């Protein structure tokens, strides 16, 4: 694990450094050099926030198959799923935190919340989820901390510290831990469903944007969370774990089976949304879909969305992935990348229609650009930085934490 973790860590560090100028610009000049504008107020960072928070919920729900529903076939990747959920949550929060106009006032979300806002539901649910995730990870890893803390060196010292003095490995203590993990996981399942659904609800409640204002959207968020979480997990198990394709062949193929089902359900929902909106003549429904399919960003829909995230992986998983961990891994990788396109096309087409006819051509001011949104260099910088931070935390986990339960599971 050590060498791999180092390589991942270096990749993360390089990403972080590459994006550092963007972050510095964001911190010193605020949003002045942003490509988003008032007519397109939510853009790349919101897309990636939705993407990473979705993966977090998805990975967590997959971990619950082990810890709540007792599906032993995924036992060996349970810890990895939990840790992936944590890393992606932190990455998502970094994105959305930097997206705020006054990031330093985030605490107001706790001190003077307005519970009519779905954004508050999300934030409060995240907070509970975050602590629950930490607790669950600790209980799951505690036996490894105790055993690993017996030797000498930095890692053993770290593990001794991380036991927080709870060193009891008797069958009774282990049984108690297992119960606690099951309870935490059981609370976590509705929590993860609620928060990924709430992110969808935050978009869906805006009557001003007909494209989002559908009852299906929160459900689509949930399904895409599961699908993208499953896809990233498949990728990590297949290509990042040492000898993942060999040693973890069963898990990879099992995840692939789950993935194909989730992708298919999402595909159906997507088709339903498109057909219903495209059939009519209501501009607010029609234009966002039409622009996605045939506008200048057609490739995001056709290549990233349909090709890489949905149809491609579904075909690969159906015809090649049933017996091949390699193909399943490739399908997972394609879907992981492709889902960024799906998320993009959830957020940005919402701003495709001018609020009042003619307003887009009535005046010209900076940061009032209707139409095509192109992320600025500053936005790309912050994006590289935030992803770099996520990759770096992942590498630290790989290097230092017992992500694989080598010994008989607790």
């Amino acid at each position: 694990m050590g060498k791999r973790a180092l390589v991942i860590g270096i990749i993360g560090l390089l990403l972080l450094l590459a994006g550092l100028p963007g972050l510095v610009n964001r911190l010193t000049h605020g949003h002045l050099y942003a490509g988003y504008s008032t007519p397109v107020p939510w853009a790349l960072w919101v897309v990636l926030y939705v993407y990473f928070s979705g993966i977090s919920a998805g990975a967590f729900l997959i971990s619950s198959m082990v810890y709540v529903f007792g599906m032993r076939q995924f036992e060996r990747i349970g810890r990895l799923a939990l840790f992936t959920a944590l890393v992606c949550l932190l990455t998502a929060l970094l994105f959305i935190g930097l997206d705020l106009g006054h990031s330093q006032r985030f605490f107001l979300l706790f001190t003077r919340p307005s519970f009519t806002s779905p954004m508050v539901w999300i934030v409060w649910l995240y907070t509970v989820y975050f602590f629950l995730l930490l607790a669950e990870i600790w209980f799951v890893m505690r036996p490894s901390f105790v055993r690993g803390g017996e030797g000498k060196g930095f890692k053993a010292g770290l593990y001794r510290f991380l036991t927080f003095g709870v060193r009891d490995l008797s069958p009774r203590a282990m049984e108690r831990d297992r119960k606690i993990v099951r309870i935490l996981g059981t609370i976590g399942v509705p929590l993860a469903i609620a928060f990924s659904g709430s992110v969808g609800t935050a978009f869906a409640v805006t009557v001003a944007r007909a494209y989002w204002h559908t009852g299906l959207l929160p459900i689509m968020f949930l399904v895409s969370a599961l699908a993208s979480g499953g896809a990233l997990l498949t990728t990590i198990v297949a290509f990042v774990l040492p000898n993942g394709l060999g040693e973890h062949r069963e898990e990879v193929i099992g995840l692939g089976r789950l993935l194909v089902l989730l992708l298919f359900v999402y595909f159906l929902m997507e088709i339903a949304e498109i057909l219903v909106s495209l059939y009519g003549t209501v501009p607010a429904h029609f234009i966002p879909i039409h622009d996605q399919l045939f506008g200048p960003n057609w490739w995001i829909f056709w290549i990233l969305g349909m090709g890489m995230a949905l149809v491609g992986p579904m075909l690969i998983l159906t015809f090649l992935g049933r017996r091949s961990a390699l193909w399943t891994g490739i399908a997972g990788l394609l879907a992981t990348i492709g889902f960024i396109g799906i998320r993009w096309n959830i957020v940005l087409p919402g701003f495709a229609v001018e609020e009042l006819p003619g307003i887009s051509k009535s005046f010209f001011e900076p940061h009032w650009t209707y139409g095509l949104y192109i992320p600025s260099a500053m936005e790309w910088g912050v994006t590289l930085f935030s992803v770099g931070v996520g990759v770096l935390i992942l590498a630290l986990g790989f290097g230092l934490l017992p992500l694989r339960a080598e010994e008989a599971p607790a």
Partner: protein
Amino acid sequence: MLVETEVKSVTLQMYEDLDRALKKPLRERHWGMVIDTRKCVGCNACAVACKIENKLPPGVVYNVVIDEEFGTYPNVARRFISRPCLQCQNPPCVPVCPVNATYKRPDGIVVMDYDTCIGCRYCISACPYGARSFDFGNFYTVGQTPEVMPWDVMPSFEYGEEQQRDPRNPWRSPIGNVRKCHFCLHRLEKGMLPACVATCIGQAYIFGDLNDPESLVAQLAASPRAIRLKEELGTEPSVYYLL
């Protein structure tokens, strides 16, 4: 028989209406506007007056004259719709705010609390009329021309407080906040009409208390010519248009 009618200046009547409304308790007022599209010539004086009154930087737009063209040359027509914030009685921007930084006052005006707004821009997404702007921190002359013009860094007096934008500190409000039209609340409280209303060359803007049946604005809002924008969304705007 001759019917004797007293013809009063529209401006004078609006000021009388305003005085009457200001004597009532806050919650009994309902500030509203009627904009007569037949009197609008598209001169943009309202939009400019708004920019000046509120010292609005580039990119922050409270009032805009929407300019639409119809037909093909030579059979063409234009239509102007000036759009301040419509001060909805059922404002979609308010419930989505996560920190109560935007709220509806008892007199119907939807205001912003600059010191609370976290800049999440949810209200911008939620507004069906494009009436809100994010303050990205742009200036007209700072960093643009060798000499910084004094008017570029002057404070505005929105909400009756000195709102000083600082070119060197993007973390200081109102930079980084969402901003919107507030019917020039700071002027209203001093008995003055909103800048756009006071400046309109064709008196297309009628302002006053919709709760006062004697007021000009209430009488015109009851006209069969009056419509409200996107009525079907149930937002109940306080701004009416005469077609």
